[in-house]
């Protein structure tokens, strides 16, 4: 039997809440984080809605419990806030023995400061401290230093599937015995760099996004950070602490189709989901909920929808995209939606796909429209697909009894 991988801690900060409890409350109250831009300095402010974390940079420092210091990006601060929550939730500090890793994901890295100071970088020495913090590793190392994690450290960037791949790598390393537990997830901050970039690709909706709707019109970007603590069976047994759920399947596949578009038949999405189910040993009928990538673009939702139909046939389980709540948090989306899916198992509910009204012509299934309560949710699948066709799926399973 391969080593089982348990989830023992969760941490999250997005536009719908600064921690897990606030996130849950927003999900239950169908409260979206998407609205007018408040914090990002851009002249698209009145034109394009996003889901920002509702904190200024200074408030982020405060939440991260770090004195306001030069050299910190918003990205690193959001990462520290969420990773610390997960770390404390899993009480890692109380059990110092096991080897602990940090695998973090980001795509814009410290771009939020870099794009403000780039002209200074070119012409003067006033912002030099930010020059080395614009890469992707900076936030990872700052998180590691706050948490005191040293045993393994790396950063993944596969665009919008990045943090799902971070979770996957963490699980593989635990299974192989390289580390005993890992803080895995991702952080992404809204920047003009990618807001303007997505805008140039003409895939941003100027209204609240409507995934899987016939009249969907694109993405609402979001920001945030989310981390899970994954732990080996032995490590959990030693500490005797309760487990939240189990990670039972993961799979990564590549569309190999186009740099930013998904293939019409969703081959990458299909292969990622298929690999994940096969690995978990479950049957498709066991999946109680799919948290779709569901960005709300014309292209993704057809591609993903067809892949789901191909894999699940006539019996598609309840599907929803929760991006109408959080926006598309890009590199953080995999971990954000992993946590939102895990909450379905903990609360025995299924979150609705907000803003949906008209079924897509191409698909036989429609997403969940209203909050479903008191429903048995034992296995959830969550999809994360990225630019470059980097597609990853994860399955989490409920743990009813685990004897220590």
């Amino acid at each position, binding site marked *: 039997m391969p080593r089982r991988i348990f989830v023992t801690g969760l941490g999250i900060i997005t536009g719908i809440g600064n921690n897990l409890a606030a996130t849950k409350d927003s999900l239950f109250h169908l409260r979206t984080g998407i609205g007018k831009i408040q914090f990002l300095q*851009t002249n698209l402010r009145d034109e394009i809605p996003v889901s920002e974390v509702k904190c200024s940079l200074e408030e982020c420092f405060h939440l991260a419990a770090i004195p306001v210091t030069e050299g910190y990006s918003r990205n690193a601060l959001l990462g520290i806030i969420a990773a610390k929550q997960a770390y404390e939730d899993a009480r890692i500090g109380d059990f110092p023995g096991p080897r602990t890793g940090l695998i973090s994901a980001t795509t814009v890295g410290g771009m939020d400061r870099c794009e403000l100071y780039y002209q200074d970088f070119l012409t003067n020495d006033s912002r030099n401290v930010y020059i080395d913090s614009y890469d*992707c590793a900076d936030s*990872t190392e700052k998180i590691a230093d706050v948490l005191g994690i040293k045993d393994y450290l790396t*950063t993944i960037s596969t665009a919008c599937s990045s943090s799902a791949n971070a979770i996957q790598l963490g699980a593989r390393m635990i299974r192989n015995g390289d580390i005993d537990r890992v803080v895995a997830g991702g952080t992404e901050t809204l920047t003009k*760099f990618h807001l303007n970039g997505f805008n140039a690709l003409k895939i941003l909706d100027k209204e609240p996004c409507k995934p899987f709707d016939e009249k969907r019109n694109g993405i609402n970007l979001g920001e945030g950070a989310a981390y899970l603590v994954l732990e080996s069976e032995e490590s959990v047994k030693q500490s005797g602490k309760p487990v939240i759920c189990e990670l039972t399947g993961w799979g990564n596949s*590549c569309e190999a189709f186009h740099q930013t578009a998904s293939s019409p038949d969703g081959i990458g999405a299909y292969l990622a989901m298929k690999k994940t189910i096969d690995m978990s040993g479950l049957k498709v009928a066991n999946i109680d909920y799919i948290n779709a990538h569901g960005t709300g673009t014309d292209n993704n939702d057809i591609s993903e929808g067809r892949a789901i139909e191909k894999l699940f046939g006539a019996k598609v389980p309840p599907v929803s995209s929760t991006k109408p709540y959080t926006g598309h948090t890009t590199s953080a989306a995999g971990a954000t939606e992993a946590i939102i899916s895990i909450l379905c198992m903990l609360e025995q509910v299924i979150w609705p796909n907000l803003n949906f009204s008209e079924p897509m012509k191409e698909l036989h299934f429609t997403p969940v429209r209203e909050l479903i309560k008191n429903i048995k949710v034992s296995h959830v699948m969550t999809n994360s697909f990225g*630019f*470059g066709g*980097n597609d990853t799926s994860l399955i989490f399973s409920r743990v009813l009894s685990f004897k220590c």
Partner: protein
Amino acid sequence: MSAFINGIGIISPQKTVETEDFLMEIMEYESDYLKCIEPASYKPYIDPIQSRRMSRLIKIGITSAKTCLNESGCTMPDAIITGTGLGSVEDTEKILGTIHLDQPFLNPTPFMQSTYNTISSQIAIQLKCHNYNSTYVHRTFSFESSLQDALLQIKEGTAKDILAGGIDEMTLNHLAITRRRGHWKNKPVKNLEMLKWNSPGSLAGEGSGFFLLSADKTNKTYAFIRDVKTIYKPANLDEIAQRVNSMLAASELGISDIDLVLLGINGDNRNDPLYHEFARSLFPDTPLAYYKHLCGEYHTASCFALWLAANIIQRQTVPDVIRLNDLHREPVRNVLIYNQYYNVNHSFILVSK
């Protein structure tokens, strides 16, 4: 956990592409940074219609990946994994250069190509490869993380042939910016005089190296990677020594089994003393070599070192230009690559015959 190196494609500031030679002619520079020697034409590697829109780094990446696959005979790898510290700097700069003007519409091409996973996914698109695909972006751990993922896949049995590489580029703008942080010398320097510099700052470089890592040996096999380890912020030299010893012990090797140590000396007198101290205390009787005078310093420079190690083992020859001491040992069975970046990110790659 090990993998055979069954093919290599490398583009570097030395003559390493479209040649069978192994450092026959050493490129001597007096410059601000070392630039890759690219193939005369990309036509044999990339459809000209596609390559017209590609930035330089992507072309370099695809070309080195295809060179590697051609050499190995593998047409469809079971995984593609890339490490890059900064991805396409050129594309990122195209956007950053005008971002303060807050133009709502950018040219989408540099944005699409600026994402770090572009190299891995463009290689997949070229090959129509639907298999595992990932990108590591952690400074000088980037390439090492790719190797670790590859080795893990082979151990898991989920992949037999893996294309793993490291790639980074330098641009004049990025050089000027990072000079402000004191990373580089402030004037052009002679690359082959690195050991005489004795001043702060290194010489920047760039390069791309892809390796076909396989579960099985073939008649193309250069060498095999036994293990790859990274250490983050070690407390002292003792901690580094302990990690090296346990890594060697896991492969049932001792210090005396290492026939050559390849050190990432970069000509910065704030950085290099640690290498010398390391070598003096752990490997006082071992042949030592260095390589960054040939390729420059960059986040994934250890891919150049791995190319060197694989060729040294296969050809059983250590080029004089890389020797750091007068010790010689034959045969060369085990090579240890050690890289460290300002005492924060340390990494070891153990390569054997």
